């Protein structure tokens, strides 16, 4: 396992919700990353975000880790959930909230 792979593996397994994105939650640098942030904020899920634009190794490493060619990537409890399209579909169907609840992750109620 390469260093970056071990780093990613540790990150997603020691944090409940991890998002690898372009930019930061305050300043997303890509519309797809921004959409996932909006969804996570809306459902009130606590998450840890990594900006892949800060780290070229991470940017490539995360694609190899999940066998997934694009960013953003969302992980819940070490499990790769999907990119923007899947997260949006799961949000709209209520599946995302269910997955968070099933994983025992407390969400903050909006309002």
């Amino acid at each position, binding site marked *: 396992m390469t260093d970056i792979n071990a780093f990613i593996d540790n990150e997603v397994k020691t944090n409940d919700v991890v998002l690898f994105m372009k930019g930061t939650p305050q300043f997303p640098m890509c519309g*797809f990353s921004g959409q996932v942030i909006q969804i996570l904020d809306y459902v009130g899920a606590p998450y840890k975000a990594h900006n892949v634009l800060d780290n070229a190794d991470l940017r490539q490493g995360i694609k190899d880790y999940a*066998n*997934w*060619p694009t960013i953003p990537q969302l992980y819940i409890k070490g499990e790769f959930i*999907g*990119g923007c*399209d*899947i997260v949006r*579909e*799961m949000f709209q169907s209520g599946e995302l909230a269910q997955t968070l609840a099933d994983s025992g992750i407390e969400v903050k109620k909006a309002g």
Partner: protein
Amino acid sequence: MPMQAADIERMIKDALPDAKVEIRDLAGDGDHYAATVISSAFRGLPKVKQHQLVYAALKGNMGGVLHALALTTSPE
């Protein structure tokens, strides 16, 4: 060089011969597309695996020359 919608459709159909593919050029720039792919190959697979099949069909172009392809997949 951006990819043409017809190229994307052909690559997906090469890999998933029964696929029904609908592609929309979102921004008119040949770089931001949305695709709906319907194929029996997706049956029983989680969404991540369904999308990975489509990405595999695009043979490394996704995330490279093809920046944005919003995907919707369904087995029927």
